[in-house]
């Protein structure tokens, strides 16, 4: 497995974070993304950092694993830091790199912004690390319920998402199979000029589309045979229930907001 794929890859577990209602996780993370932008003092940042670290610890996933998962975004974080260092010209000059002056304000702001960025990404990645894609789909369906009133196809959207999730591994297997078959017929996917490489994709894409259409057709027929007539009158096996632990989490989060208001400069 490529490290780059750890972002968003579900790690099975039984921790309290895993067992939270996915709606709780989504709402909390959504609010967190907003309040991160309200932090503006050392203590307010510290408070947010402690909260995020605590969340990460409660998942019982190895911290090093979570950090490793962020590898692809480290570059962005460092880049942000450097950018502020160069652009911001406030406060005392701390030191010079060659002749270029580095201001204290730049260091402060760079650190603050990168930390904000880091916390954002880490907390969001906790959602996908502890929640299966299908739980996320369920949560979206449930949270979007109010939109049904304005005829937004909430059920259809959720069904489409869950079927896509279901077929991703199948289509990946299929892609591998067809690319091997075409490689055996002399297609070279790995070398050659850009134009040649783009051309090499055609014998792969056409069969994939053909098969995806065939699958879709058969799936639609199977669904119909199994009595699917849209969302009306359907019951659901998957059930989302707010538990005590969810209420507890909302309580803690409310305290965090209050704390943030007090520590703001």
């Amino acid at each position: 497995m490529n490290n780059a794929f750890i972002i968003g890859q579900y790690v099975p577990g039984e921790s309290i974070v895993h067992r939270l209602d996915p709606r709780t996780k989504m709402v909390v993370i959504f609010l967190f993304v907003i309040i991160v932008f309200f932090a503006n003092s050392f203590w307010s940042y510290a408070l947010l950092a402690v909260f995020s670290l605590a969340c990460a610890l409660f998942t019982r996933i190895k911290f090093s694993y979570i950090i490793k998962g962020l590898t692809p975004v480290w570059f962005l974080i460092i880049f942000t830091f450097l950018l502020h260092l160069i652009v911001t010209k406030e406060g005392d000059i701390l030191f010079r790199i060659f002749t270029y002056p580095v201001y204290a304000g730049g260091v402060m702001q760079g650190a603050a912004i990168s930390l904000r960025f880091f916390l954002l990404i880490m907390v969001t990645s906790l959602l996908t690390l502890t929640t299966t894609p299908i739980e996320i789909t369920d949560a979206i369906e449930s949270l979007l319920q109010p939109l049904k009133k304005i005829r937004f196809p909430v059920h259809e959207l959720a069904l489409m998402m869950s079927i896509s999730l279901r077929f991703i591994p199948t289509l990946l297997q299929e892609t591998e199979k067809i690319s091997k078959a075409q490689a055996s017929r002399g297609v070279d996917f790995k070398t050659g000029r850009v134009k040649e490489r783009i051309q090499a994709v055609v014998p792969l894409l056409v069969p994939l589309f053909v098969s995806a259409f065939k699958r879709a057709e058969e799936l639609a027929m199977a669904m119909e045979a199994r009595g699917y007539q849209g969302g009306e009158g359907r019951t659901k096996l998957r059930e989302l229930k707010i538990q005590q632990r969810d209420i507890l989490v909302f309580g803690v989060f409310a305290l965090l907001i209050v704390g943030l208001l007090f520590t703001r400069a």
Partner: protein
Amino acid sequence: MDISFKNVSYTYQLNTPFEHKAIEDMSFNIPSGSFVAIVGHTGSGKSTLIQHLNGLLQPTAGEVAIGSYRLTAEKKLKDLKELRSKVGIVFQYPEHQLFEETVAKDIAFGPLNFGVEQQEIEKRTAEALKAVQLPEGMLERSPFELSGGQMRRVAIAGVLAVQPEVLILDEPTAGLDPRGQKDMMEMFKRLHKQEGLTTILVTHSMEDALVYADHVMIMDHGRKYMEGSPQEVFVKKEELKRVDLDVPEIIQFIFKVREMFPTDLNYHGQTIPELAEELGRITRGDIHE
């Protein structure tokens, strides 16, 4: 081309937590011109094995030799493309690889990739179509409007048009009706003889292995379990049972006859009418068979 495996192993996703050994320490020889059946359950490593024969996979240990080409864990084969032009693979459900607008173009795709001249390609396309017993009028039609069986033949023609010396067939009859299956196997038998191919058939069907192959290799859990002529391998009822494989039906029946009648009836490659004759003699009391 002679094929030989020397202590070949292949591990998927080596050095990761997802490591998975697919074949382990396999050694065998396939002399040029033989018709070999590879039999084993799903997951026994058959597909991994055949992917080594044209360099789709590189062994993680050991050495694979196909004619003068060598595949090892250490060295990447430079003339991979040349090897692929000599070893053709008909994958399971090969009709899934069709993509061109016309049958002719799809058949020509392989030869074109391997740098065959245009004139020669046209000649080969016509020949390949004939070899898979499709009418010439089909060349300008779209492969997607043909029947399932015809599509499969077009895909096979695409592999034949490259004129490989080794032909690998992965479950070539899956999903066909009984007549389609028989026609398809008879076609491969004819091609094997006519073109002097080395044919490797991966199959679940003991019956096909018995009828068409001159050498059988049984695989189990990524290892070679047994090999020999069909007559040697398929009479070993106990050994086959241990890996959950059945003896071909004709041999099963002969065993049952032997339990019931005092006879030394044996499987020696007889056809059903021949067996009927032998049974007639036994039941009439001409015990000496």
